[in-house]
């Protein structure tokens, strides 16, 4: 693992997608036109291959030397001076370690498949849609941003990537900017993320205030020693405050309660974008950040408790809403929220490696599901609501087969990828607190149910499609990524599954000092047979029960859901309206703030200006009074002269 090689890898991973994006954007309208995907496909492919090389480098590194900090250049002078009295800078620098490597592989790998898939998806009847080159340029920029986020070696670069993925999601969600809903969704995504960023930025400021540095290594070192930058002992409240502020950012980006509201609306973007946002980039950033800042979080039990509770609550919350939605992509969106909840929960119970494992497997099956849904949408001419079609398994055999694989993996069907990672998380949650574990199990049951509800509604039952739609299976550019992802969804779990545990061992140097040390159980070594396999059996059984229940309700006895809906209308409506969170925010925050804005304008126009009018009225009033004296009548002047002389005389004589 020589620094030179790592430096080159980092540069390639960052620049290849960026250059691709710039080329697509610049040359797309004039030269490439419907070939505008090539620069981005090539760029992301280079990034992926380099990531694999990088991962091999890290894996091949000797023990204890798996982490390297590679400086690139001086970025921002922050006024302080270093030990030698020279100006200190926030640098542009990479941190390369197993966590970075695994994230880069996931990000670039899934992104590559998504980019390939988009080549056909962004065409109608073989013709590139309006804004084709723009789409690919933004995809390239998105990959660049996410890689920058993951590669950055200090909090400021993390923030850079953090904001940049927010921007790219804004641009891509609003890709169909002519549709007001898309424009609104894009803005919402950016703003909700900014609310999280507000906390995140304050967290970074507090880190700098406390430690005098923003470089990961230096900060984490001080945290583990319990010291501040000036050598004083670090107070528990301070580290809790830092952790919670950072977590605020993670809530925004990884769509945790209460900042989850942007993610379902983000479905307004084209399906490949959804796949990218939900699987590889964007939402995983929050998970990555908490895992990266493990030292900070693990140092504060309070913060860890908050993280675990928020994660568990989000998992259940998302799954419950997904039960009743009818838009396939929206169901998947709530499912993402729920699965992200699992990951956050895992970190909260000191199982960050399990969280990353779940992130890894989830990337495969969630990308697969979104691309599958995109395939359905493509075939249905843009309609994705399961109330409008059904029985598609015959006409879309490839899509159906891969979609089922993805659904099984998401449901946690035994021996598929989602099963291993989710089971691990539930195991840790149970060990930490029974309630958390039970919520995890319950969510697993719901997950299996709503996933297969969607599958049965869309692909089973009598064949019906909307008027004027002639569904057809997609071309090879779209099918190939689906197949590759299916393989991943089937097999990715074995990378981390018990027995091999390769992923965990790979990640261990990153988490050993922070999470693993504090974890009450360490799964690979200590779990007894029944303690562990018992749970595996239970969670596998729950998944099968959920699937069977969905089969019963939506295939065998389709009248039952209607009855349920009628018997509990209020609960149904609450779920349908997503617990009214949007309405609550609108009424409690947006409207009052807008009123505040109008008040400010009014104050400007009448209050401040009125006051100034009053002040300027004083000279005017004086002038008005004096003006009456200037009447031009000689008698008046004479009179006042006499009166003046009289007064003066009086004064003189008196004194």
């Amino acid at each position: 693992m020589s620094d030179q090689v790592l430096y080159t890898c980092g540069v390639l991973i960052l620049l290849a997608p960026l250059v691709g994006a710039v080329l697509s954007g610049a040359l797309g309208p004039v030269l490439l036109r419907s070939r505008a995907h090539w620069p981005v496909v090539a760029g992301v492919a280079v990034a992926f291959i380099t990531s694999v090389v990088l991962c091999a480098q890290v894996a091949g590194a000797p023990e204890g030397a798996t982490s390297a900090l590679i400086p690139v250049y001086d970025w921002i002078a922050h006024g302080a001076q270093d030990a030698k009295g020279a100006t200190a800078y926030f640098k542009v620098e990479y941190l390369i370690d197993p966590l970075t490597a695994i994230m880069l592989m996931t990000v670039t790998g899934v992104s590559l498949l998504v980019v390939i898939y988009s080549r056909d998806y962004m065409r109608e009847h073989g013709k590139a849609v309006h804004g084709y080159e723009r789409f690919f340029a933004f995809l390239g920029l998105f990959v660049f941003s996410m890689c920058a986020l993951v590669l950055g070696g200090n909090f400021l670069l993390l923030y850079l990537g953090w904001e940049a993925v927010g921007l790219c999601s804004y641009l891509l969600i609003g890709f169909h900017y002519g549709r007001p809903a898309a424009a609104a969704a894009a803005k919402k995504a950016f703003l909700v993320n900014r609310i999280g960023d507000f906390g995140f930025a304050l967290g970074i400021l507090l880190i700098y205030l406390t430690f005098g540095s923003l470089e990961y290594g230096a900060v984490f070192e001080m945290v583990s020693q319990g010291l501040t930058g000036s050598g004083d002992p670090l107070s528990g409240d301070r580290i809790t405050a830092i952790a919670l502020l950072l977590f605020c950012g993670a809530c925004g980006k990884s769509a945790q309660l209460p900042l989850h509201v942007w993610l379902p609306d983000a479905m307004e973007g084209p399906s490949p974008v959804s796949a990218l946002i939900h699987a590889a980039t964007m939402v995983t950033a929050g998970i990555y950040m908490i895992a990266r800042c493990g030292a900070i979080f693990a140092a504060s039990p309070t913060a860890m408790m908050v993280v675990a509770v928020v994660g568990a609550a989000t998992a259940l919350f998302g799954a419950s809403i997904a039960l009743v939605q009818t838009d396939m992509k929206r169901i998947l969106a709530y499912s993402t929220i729920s699965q992200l909840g699992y990951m956050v929960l895992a970190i909260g119970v000191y199982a960050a490696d399990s969280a990353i494992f779940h992130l890894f497997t989830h990337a495969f099956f969630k990308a697969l599901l979104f691309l599958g849904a995109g395939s359905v949408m493509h075939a249905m001419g843009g309609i994705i609501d399961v109330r409008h079609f059904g029985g598609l398994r015959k006409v879309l055999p490839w899509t159906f087969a891969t979609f089922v694989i993805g659904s099984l993996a998401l449901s946690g069907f035994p021996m598929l990828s989602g099963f291993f990672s989710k089971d691990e998380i539930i195991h840790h949650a149970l060990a930490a607190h029974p309630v958390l574990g039970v919520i995890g199990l319950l969510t697993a049951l719901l997950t299996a149910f709503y996933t297969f509800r969607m599958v049965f509604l869309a692909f089973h039952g009598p064949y019906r499609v909307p008027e004027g739609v002639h569904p057809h299976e997609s071309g090879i550019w779209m099918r190939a990524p689906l197949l590759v992802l299916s393989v991943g969804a089937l097999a990715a779990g074995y990378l981390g599954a018990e027995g091999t545990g390769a992923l965990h061992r790979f990640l261990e140097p990153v988490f050993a000092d922070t999470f693993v040390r504090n974890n009450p159980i360490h799964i690979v070594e200590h779990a007894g047979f029944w303690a562990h396999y018992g749970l595996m059996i239970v969670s596998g059984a729950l998944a099968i029960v959920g699937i069977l229940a969905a089969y019963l309700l939506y295939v065998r006895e389709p009248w039952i859901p209607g009855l349920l809906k009628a018997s509990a209308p209020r609960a149904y409506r609450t779920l349908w309206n997503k617990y009214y969170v949007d309405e609550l925010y609108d009424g409690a925050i947006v409207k009052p703030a807008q009123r505040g804005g109008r008040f400010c304008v009014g104050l400007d126009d009448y209050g401040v200006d009125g006051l100034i009018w009053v002040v300027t009225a004083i000279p005017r009033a004086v002038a008005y009074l004096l003006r009456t004296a200037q009447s031009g009548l000689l008698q008046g002047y004479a009179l006042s002269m006499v009166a003046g002389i009289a007064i003066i005389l009086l004064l003189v004589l008196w004194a």
Partner: protein
Amino acid sequence: MESWILTIVIFTPLVGGVLLMLPPYGNNASVRRSALFYSLLTLGISLLALFKFYEGAPANSYDDPAYLLTHRAPWNTGELIDIDGLAVPSIDIAYHVGVDGISIWLVVLATLLMPLAILSGFRSIRTRVREYYCLLLFLETGLLGVFCAMDLLFFYVCFEFTLIPLYFLIGIWGGSERRRAANKFFIFTLAGSVLTFAGVLYLAYYSYTTLGYLTLNIEKLIELGQGGFLPYNLQWWLFLAFAAGFAIKVPLFPVHTWLPLAHTEAPTAGSVILAGVLLKLGTYGFCRLSIPMFPDASRELAPTIAVLAIIGIIYAALAAWVQKDIKKLVAYSSVSHLGFCMLGLFSLKVAGVSGGVLYMVNHGLSTGALFLIVGFIYERYHTRKFAELGGLARPMPWLAFFLIFFTLSSIGLPGLNGFVGEFLVLLATATSATTDDGIAAGPLGYAYAIPAALGIILSAVYMLRMCQRLLFGSLVEPAGTPDTSTGLSKDLTRREIGILTPIALCCLAIGVYPKPLLDTFEVATRQHVLRHPAPRTRTDAGTLEQQRSASLRRSVASTAPAGDLNKLSTPTNRASVGLIGASALISAREDRTPNASAESIRVKQPASRGGDRRPGDDT
């Protein structure tokens, strides 16, 4: 050449403007071309000055604070008087210009924006073309004069002079309410700067009572303030007097109400220069004059100013959110941004001041560009109402690209310029109470950063609202538009793209690699803005007195007889000399600034500070 270069930069536009007024009068097209030529010439010379500045900068260390490229022509009024055997003019007023790391970049900013502003009016200004460009060029001279001034009187003259061209620019070429806007602008800013002038006069008078001769040399006045020779009470009042003029110019809440109106009514070039450069005169005044000259009062009043700045950030952002007029929205965003700038300056930290100055540059670029874009829209649609426009991204992709780009720059997206300034300001505010940078602990703290950081959310709220309403959704255009009768195309023309592209490139460059700017800002900040580490407040005046007399004795002991005072300014004992400030020779920099080295500051020690003891008496 070296010493004349700033003078040439300052007066090229003036000469150009005068030449425009002289016969032979060309037609409108040739007037436009010549105006553009003069402004480009100024830009070229200012870039040369920047280059010269960098050549001189390495020798310029913290220990030897110097202004570079100085040029001095004394008035030589008053008779020469004898102070300690040196002949000094009794009235030390001069045409005196020079730059440091802060002002050189502001000069470049002003000279960069002016040709672009001139270019932006090529189609829209059709009446009284000659006067229009003359006024713009005169305005540029005024602005450059302020940034380069080393003499307080020259500073003030230029500061006031800028009002006149802008008054006419708004009043003649403005929108429907131009008269009211021009009057309001003029009266507001004049009212404030009259107080500033009172402060200037008193300061000059006070320098006479302290030093024995009257000086308006900014360097010497700073030494006076930094040396602790301005009593706290006096500092307090002078700070307020100076702030009256500067705060209105910034504009600081609650005296900002002239700005939205003036911006909205001004022609595009006027708005660009107003937002891009003119507002910076206020913040520049604070950081060049108020903070270094009145350090104790600044420290004491900083929390008040910071609170006003934070109120301004939030208040203006909320107001911007509900605007119905695009230009007014951008104008209110200016108020909000300048709040950040003030907050950074009054964190009294190196990072804050250099961040604040960078914020000035950034705001000039991004808000200037936004005003340009609003102008381009107005030229086509003759309206600036959100309600009458929408979905412009489809017919105008270039416009959409630039609008989103500058929006992102304005809301501080990392990788673009806005972020660097904003982050440094917040960082300095949060860490104001620490001493990591070798400067005394500042008066602010983390609690100030929390409400200020709300600006991160709010700026995105109103700017994205603007983008959404203007660019996205279905196409909405007023009937009969876009108006292409003046030769404009539907999307931006090449000229317009050519105006915006350089600004965009600057934004990107500063965002990715701000080092060249920040390095010079930092040096200048340490040299000229926040110089002395010892905190001075009313409470520790006693200890201060002891420090002073101690350092006085120290420096005096190390000094040769009076005739040899020049030796004092070797770097090693520079610090102690700085502490006693006016008690010894300050400005001897024979090697670099031969013109300025003739006189030196001497102190007629006030009785309260040790009777008639003078440097040299003890030896």
